[in-house]
């Protein structure tokens, strides 16, 4: 049977497995072939798991025995290299964890496994999830499938590129300041950052614990929704995980457009790519034609979001990365005394951006600077959350671009850390406030020959992922 990979979805796989159209094993074979053909030029994967065949054969056996397939039976996943899969290497694309093998499953992996997901391999990322382009990987960058001279976005760039080039059906990533949504936008797929606490962080290699969330990357909203429903839920192993029913608003959401990100009057905004502005205007027209109310809202403190983020995040990074000391895991440099081993191991095996952020965080947390930096940032974070509370009194969902531009060129921002940081300007506020946000592909921009995907971002109140899916589908269906 011939399969068109771009038309496959979770529902379609289920249908075919039940009807006997093909087996889970055949599906793994097809994806492995695709990876072999495409990944030489894209470099999305760090490792391909050969035991995916065994996983699939086991599932086929169970179907033959009459078991009715669970939600994600036979669905081939790619997993970001910072999410632990028992007995597999997991290194957050860092040299310091090069030889580390996970001794347990992350809770999200356990949940996927329980409903029959198959793991094809682990994907490339910015080291310790620090970056917006995948160029900070210790193992070389991933390329954007739409244009190999451009970045796939980051930090979950490998996961996004793998989904976009049909090298897996769906993937998991993690989002601390936009690391699921930005690569999803750059690669033309759907990416969800759930409400903080929706998905357990147990088994996710921590970057900034008060911001990190695991989220799905998928080809369409239905698939992302299905995966989210599986991986969410309270976990005793993550004290910040929350227990809730997914909520949603009515059929015709009131859509707020934050004027700080896009002006309804000017139909654009300074610094916004023309193609991105055109996509926004089209989305607004579509929603209006469906009788959704469109209104201007304001998030005044978002002006400070990125500054706030670049204090809180490195502060948490500096303490989370303290465990990579050459004593507990993997790599160690030689030295006479302990302190020398720490300093040398971290010099040799942590990449430049990781070291830069550890040092920045150390500075922000050092004695005498608390009030000026960390304390001030925590207060600004409160203001940012307050803005969202206010905006959600007037609107059910917020619409903005995910990123101001389509994918940039490899190397374009690599020399200037601040320029790289600024690409997260629309995505960071949702992490600071803890609200869920979804990026969905909304057409292509650019010249005929090299058209690049554009992503639009929907943001909903805490626990209202259902609103994101409903509003997202209105756009997805009518684009």
């Amino acid at each position, binding site marked *: 049977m011939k399969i068109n990979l771009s038309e496959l979805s979770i529902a379609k796989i289920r249908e075919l497995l039940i009807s006997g159209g093909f087996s889970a094993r055949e599906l793994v074979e097809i994806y492995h072939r695709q990876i072999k053909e495409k990944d030489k030029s894209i470099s999305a994967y760090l490792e391909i798991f050969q035991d995916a065949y065994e996983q699939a054969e086991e599932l086929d056996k169970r179907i033959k025995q009459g078991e009715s397939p669970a939600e994600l039976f036979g669905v081939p996943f790619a997993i970001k290299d910072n999410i632990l899969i028992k007995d597999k290497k997991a290194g957050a694309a860092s040299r310091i964890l090069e030889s580390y093998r996970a001794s347990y499953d992350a809770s999200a992996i356990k949940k996927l496994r329980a409903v029959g997901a198959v793991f094809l391999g682990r994907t490339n990322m910015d080291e310790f999830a620090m970056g917006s382009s995948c160029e900070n990987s210790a193992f070389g960058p991933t390329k954007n499938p739409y244009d190999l001279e451009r970045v796939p976005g980051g930090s979950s760039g490998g996961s996004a590129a793998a989904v976009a080039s049909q090298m897996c059906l769906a993937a998991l990533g993690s989002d601390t300041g936009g690391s699921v949504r930005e690569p999803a936008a750059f690669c033309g797929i759907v990416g969800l950052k759930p409400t903080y606490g929706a998905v357990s962080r147990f088994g996710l290699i921590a970057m900034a614990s008060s911001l990190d969330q695991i989220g799905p990357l998928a080809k369409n909203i239905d698939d992302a929704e299905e995966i989210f429903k599986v991986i969410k839920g309270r976990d005793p192993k993550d004290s910040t995980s929350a227990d809730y029913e997914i909520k949603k608003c009515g059929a015709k959401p009131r859509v707020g457009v934050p004027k700080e990100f896009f002006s309804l009057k000017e139909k654009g905004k300074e610094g916004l790519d023309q193609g991105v502005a055109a996509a926004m205007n089209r989305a607004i027209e579509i929603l209006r034609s469906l009788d959704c109310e469109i209104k201007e809202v304001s998030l005044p403190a978002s002006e400070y979001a990125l*500054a706030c983020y670049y204090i809180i995040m490195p502060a948490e990074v500096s303490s989370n990365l303290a465990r990579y000391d050459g004593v507990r895991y993997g790599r160690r440099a030689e030295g006479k*005394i302990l302190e020398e081993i720490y300093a040398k191991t971290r010099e040799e095996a*942590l990449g430049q951006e990781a070291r830069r952020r550890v040092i920045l965080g150390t500075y922000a947390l050092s004695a005498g600077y608390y009030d000026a930096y960390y304390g001030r940032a*925590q207060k600004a974070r*409160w203001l940012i959350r307050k803005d969202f509370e206010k905006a959600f009194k007037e609107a059910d969902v917020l619409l903005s671009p995910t990123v101001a531009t389509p994918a940039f060129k490899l190397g374009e921002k690599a020399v200037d850390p*601040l320029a790289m940081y600024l690409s997260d300007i629309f995505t960071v506020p949702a992490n600071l406030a803890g609200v869920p946000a979804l990026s969905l592909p909304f057409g292509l921009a650019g010249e005929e020959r090299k058209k690049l995907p554009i992503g639009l971002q929907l943001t909903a109140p805490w626990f209202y992922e259902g609103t994101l899916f409903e509003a997202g589908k209105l756009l997805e269906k009518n684009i």
Partner: protein
Amino acid sequence: MDIKKLSQLARIKLNKKEQESFSKDLESILGYIGKLKEAKIENAPELTHILAAENVFRLDEAPAEPFGNAAELLAAAPEKKKGFVKVKQVFNED
């Protein structure tokens, strides 16, 4: 900003060249972060938990599912001895 001191505190060795380039990068990042000084935060409390945090008690019992097995966790360490993680001496002799 004393980059040497910071690299000591962070336990990350930096060579001369990197000390310079990091100082430059950090100055520019801190310049941007300085924006926060304009924020009107006088009446804002510090936000420490994004969702309303309540203390969650549990009974003082061993967890139903014990965590991993020690040998496997230990295996990840580069140097060990008799079931312990081995570290180098902490202090210089002189």
